[in-house]
């Protein structure tokens, strides 16, 4: 069976596009071959900066002949129908058709069509130009004289040659001949641009790889990566160093060379005063070099770096290493300049007084100056959500409010929040945005901030996903929660919620972050309260600025939204639910410690809260249900049963820790015999009740002991009183296992009740009383979970 070799050689393809392009080429060509009726045994793609190559083995030499009969109209059909048939079957006259007889239909025409199979070469010659013309490059270009005319060939960079040979192992392969925009396929390629620039004539893949290697081209990108990694490790080791490995960089570097040669360069030790991460990123981003550390060092870097050249230089690479060292030194001088500039005074301190006053900043301190500047520059956070300065104001107020509830020092939380975004205006973060937070922490420590304030500046961005680090220092926790809640409340207010796969502001990640912070730190926190506090922080800012403020931001939006809600009576009816919850949250919050200024105190003080509450509730409920969704995903990933989560969560559940404890307690309870039976009994009671409620049968509002007649119902009633009381107390103490245990004693009397008592008594009063008893069962278990939602 013949093999196909295809090479598309071009000017240098961007490293980041090579792997995918080679994969696309394989998929498009193999799909096309199969569609044309060919089969193949194996296909593999290769790439270098200058070529995409495809090796297809065991391709069938031709597609099969196809025979088919096309039925036509009756021999008596009108001329028009006959002509239509001729066109469809591709016949030139009806004499070419055959006549078949059918006992029912009579005589009709049939065309015997046979299409001979096509030679694979013919198929390939048609397919490849088509693929080249329609190749899915992220960005493509035109070039050369041909580009004077519209519709000229596009490729990622100018396409220079096409090699395409086809043939079985036992014979001399042939060139599959085709041409596209003046480039004619052939059996020739070229070696390394500098080391072996001559022509190479190729027969098939085996000699192609060997000849390329001889011409200083390593075709296989994974092999180039192995070579670079092994050589880099060895070179580092030989110099008493460890390579700082970097898979992303390795992939990129392997796409920049055809003949990798690893060399070592160095810079002055004085530059090691720059933070290691800044050095690494400087050298990586600008020079695409690896850094090293002294053997056994955890953090500190050495002053030696590793570069990957594309040539074996005549002098063994001395000039190359020297030249790269010079550039690295120039870049590190810039980095050192950034690092020291960030620790010095800004030139425009005079203009920053107003901002400094607003945030209580000390303009003698560099990071405080940067925060003042961030505010002063009116950098936009989001067009509808105001500036970064306004956002920091909100976060600081919120972090301060949340701090006492979670046990953090409010002053530290406020200070950390005020400085949290300051590093966005530093030179280093301007150069390397990925260092936001990390640089703020370093600069904060340098100006003598408390360790927890410095840590919070870095950690308030965390966690960034399901497996990222969750902050545990309580100051970090307060600021991290405030940062995320402000985002969520803000984007909810302007109605930029995630939909489907679209979540441009990463709000799901923010909500998951809140969930993980609360659960992994075992925080007792009412989310309803936290959301209300975030809203109030925004409103407080609005109060201060007034209607005419330059940027009304989130607060104006929120205000509009709340007014919208106010008119909607249906939404108002949901308010009662949340109102309770808010009060619960506020009670916990301890009004004495809440609020740092009069406006907030006023806001959280009775009248205004009540007014706002009614309109705010649907907003909170909506956001709360978004948190519930994130929580469910999180708990399911942890292996929790989704039916148990559903049974425990109600629209008003805003204590995430409690939800988790309930799910756990419920899970272990249902594993016991008592649990299983009580579940069955409760479900039975609930089903009866549901049926009777549907029929509108009278159900007594409370159980009347005097109407209890049978022992079984009397003992159930007695047990119920006992169990409800104990379970209620246990729940008060957040001890859900004890609550379950208390309920478990109901199992026996519930079973006896259903064995010995007929609910549907003739006496209407007795029946109503027994139904009330059933309702008590449902209510008692309902204290811990909605049993009707549990499977089984």
């Amino acid at each position, binding site marked *: 069976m013949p093999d196909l070799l295809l090479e598309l050689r071009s*000017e*240098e393809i*961007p*490293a*980041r596009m090579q792997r995918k392009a080679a994969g696309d080429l394989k998929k498009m060509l193999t799909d096309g071959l199969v569609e044309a009726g060919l089969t193949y045994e194996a296909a593999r793609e290769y790439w270098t*900066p200058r070529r995409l190559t495809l090796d297809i083995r065991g391709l069938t030499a031709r597609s099969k002949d196809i025979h088919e009969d096309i039925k036509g109209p009756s021999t008596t059909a009108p001329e028009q129908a006959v002509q239509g048939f001729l066109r469809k079957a591709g016949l030139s006259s009806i004499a070419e058709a055959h006549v078949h007889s059918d006992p029912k239909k009579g005589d009709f025409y049939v065309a015997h069509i046979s299409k001979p199979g096509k030679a694979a070469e013919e198929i390939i010659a048609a397919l490849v130009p088509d693929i080249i013309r329609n190749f899915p490059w992220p*960005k*493509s*270009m*035109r*070039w*050369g*004289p*041909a*580009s*004077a*005319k*519209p519709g000229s060939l596009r490729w*990622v*960079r*100018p396409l*220079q040659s096409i090699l395409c040979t086809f043939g079985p192992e036992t014979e001399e392969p042939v060139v599959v001949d085709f041409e596209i925009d003046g480039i004619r396929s052939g059996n020739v390629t070229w070696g390394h*641009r*500098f*080391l072996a620039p001559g022509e190479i004539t190729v027969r098939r893949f085996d000699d192609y790889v060997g000849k390329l290697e001889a011409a200083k081209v390593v075709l296989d990108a994974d092999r180039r990566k192995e070579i670079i990694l092994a050589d880099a490790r060895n070179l580092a080791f030989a110099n008493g160093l460890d390579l700082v490995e970097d898979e992303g960089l390795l992939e990129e570097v392997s796409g*920049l060379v055809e003949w990798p040669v690893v060399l070592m360069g160095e810079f002055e030790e004085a530059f090691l005063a720059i933070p290691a991460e800044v050095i690494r990123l400087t050298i990586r981003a600008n*020079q*695409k*070099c690896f850094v090293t550390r002294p053997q056994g060092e955890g953090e500190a870097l050495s002053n030696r770096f590793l*570069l990957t*050249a*594309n*040539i074996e*230089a*005549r*002098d063994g690479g001395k*000039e*190359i290493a*020297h*030249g*790269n060292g*010079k*550039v*690295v030194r*120039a870049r590190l001088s810039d980095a050192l300049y950034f690092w020291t500039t960030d620790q010095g005074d800004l030139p425009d301190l005079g203009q920053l007084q107003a901002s400094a006053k607003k945030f209580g900043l000390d303009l003698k301190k560099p990071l405080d100056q940067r925060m003042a500047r961030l505010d002063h*520059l*009116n*950098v*936009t956070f989001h067009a509808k959500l105001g500036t970064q300065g306004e956002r920091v104001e909100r976060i600081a107020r919120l972090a301060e409010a949340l701090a006492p509830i979670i046990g953090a020092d409010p002053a530290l939380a406020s200070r950390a929040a005020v400085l949290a975004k300051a590093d966005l205006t530093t030179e280093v973060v301007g150069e390397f945005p990925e260092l936001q937070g990390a640089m703020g922490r370093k600069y904060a420590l340098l100006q003598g901030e408390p360790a927890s304030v410095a840590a919070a500046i870095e950690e308030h961005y965390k966690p960034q996903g399901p497996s990222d680090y969750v902050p545990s220092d309580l100051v970090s926790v307060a600021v991290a929660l405030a940062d995320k809640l402000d985002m969520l409340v803000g984007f909810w207010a302007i109605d930029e919620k995630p939909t489907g796969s679209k979540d441009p502001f990463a709000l799901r990640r923010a909500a998951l972050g809140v969930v993980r912070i609360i659960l992994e730190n075992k925080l007792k926190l009412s989310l309803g309260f936290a959301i209300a506090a975030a809203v109030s922080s925004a409103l407080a800012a609005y109060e201060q600025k007034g209607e005419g403020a330059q940027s009304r931001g989130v607060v104006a939006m929120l205000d509009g939204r709340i007014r919208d809600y106010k008119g909607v009576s249906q939404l108002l009816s949901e308010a009662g639910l949340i109102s309770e919850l808010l009060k619960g949250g506020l009670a916990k919050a301890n009004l004495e410690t809440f609020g740092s200024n009069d406006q907030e105190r006023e806001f959280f003080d009775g009248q205004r809260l009540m007014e706002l509450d009614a309109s705010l509730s649907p907003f909170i409920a909506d956001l709360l249900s978004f948190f519930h969704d994130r929580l469910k995903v999180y708990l399911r990933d942890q292996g929790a049963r989704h039916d148990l989560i559903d049974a425990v969560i109600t629209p008003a559940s805003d204590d995430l820790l409690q939800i988790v404890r309930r799910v756990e307690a419920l899970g272990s309870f249902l594993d016991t015999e008592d649990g299983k039976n009580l579940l069955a009994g409760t479900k039975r009671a609930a089903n009866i009740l549901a049926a009777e409620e549907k029929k509108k049968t009278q159900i007594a509002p409370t159980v009347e002991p005097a109407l209890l007649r049978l022992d079984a119902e009397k003992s159930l009633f007695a047990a119920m009183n006992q169990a409800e009381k104990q379970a209620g107390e246990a729940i008060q103490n957040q001890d859900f296992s004890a609550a379950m245990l208390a309920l478990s004693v109901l199992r026996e009397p519930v079973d006896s009740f259903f064995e010995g008592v007929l609910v549907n008594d003739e006496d209407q009063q007795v029946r109503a009383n027994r139904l009330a008893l059933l309702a008590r069962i449902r209510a008692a278990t309902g204290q811990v979970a909605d049993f009707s939602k549990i499977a089984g």
Partner: protein
Amino acid sequence: MTIEIPAHMHPSRSFQGLILTLHNYWAAYGCVILQPYDMEVGAGTFHPATTLRALGPRGWNAAYVQPSRRPKDGRYGENPNRLQHYYQYQVILKPNPPNLQELYLGSLKAIGVDPLLHDIRFVEDDWESPTLGAWGLGWECWCDGMEVSQFTYFQQVCGIECAPVAGELTYGLERLAMYVQGVDNVYDLNFNGREGADKVTYGEVFLQAEQEYSRHNFEYANTAMLLRHFDDAEAECKALLEAGAPASNDNLPMHKMVFPAYDQCIKASHVFNLLDARGVISVTERQSYILRVRNLAKACGEAFLKTQAGGLAA
């Protein structure tokens, strides 16, 4: 072809030797060797020999040195690598010849960069000029990790598709000279290739100017006047384009005043750069200034297509 030059004029010894070698190389190829454009521009691309001549169907091969002004990059002469005034060597070949990469590598060899000794690389860099409404695909050309040139296949200029595509090479002359002369500070470059008392350094020629212009760019440029100049240049550009526009009864709808109009576009662009360096343009205003310059560039580009050089059939 090789042209014999005296040893002290070799690029490894003299800045002007580097320029002359490139001139010789591209002149030998057949380029028109132009002199710098006599206005302040931010890059060689702004020279009408590139911006305007990249448009339309006519072939065009040119090379020239262009002093480039980047007011914001001034460092009072204290940074060894950064200048508010430096030289670009610009080559434009339309349509790009199929062997443009080889031609470029040949020019490096001509100035003494041996690709078997130095690591030459083409690293992805998609070029875009928002003010000119231009973009292209190409590379940064690296020599031992240092970017020494920019290599671009123009796809669009003044918002107009290039047909055919032009290849543009831009050499950063000071960097390249520092490399071939083995010098770490731009001001130490040997300008004339002489030694001892006859030696003239880059610093002797330009250091004082760098200091003075940094003061001007950051501290003293009259912003109220510049803001006026920007508006004036914008208005003048539009007025000239209108005055030169083909009349409805012309046999040939030819535009008669594109180059003077384009000068005003260049002027507006430089004034904007100065205002930007003075820090009087806010983030939001910045966008709108860039857009205003781009609109001028686009209008000039469209007018150029209505001229002989732009391909209008005579």
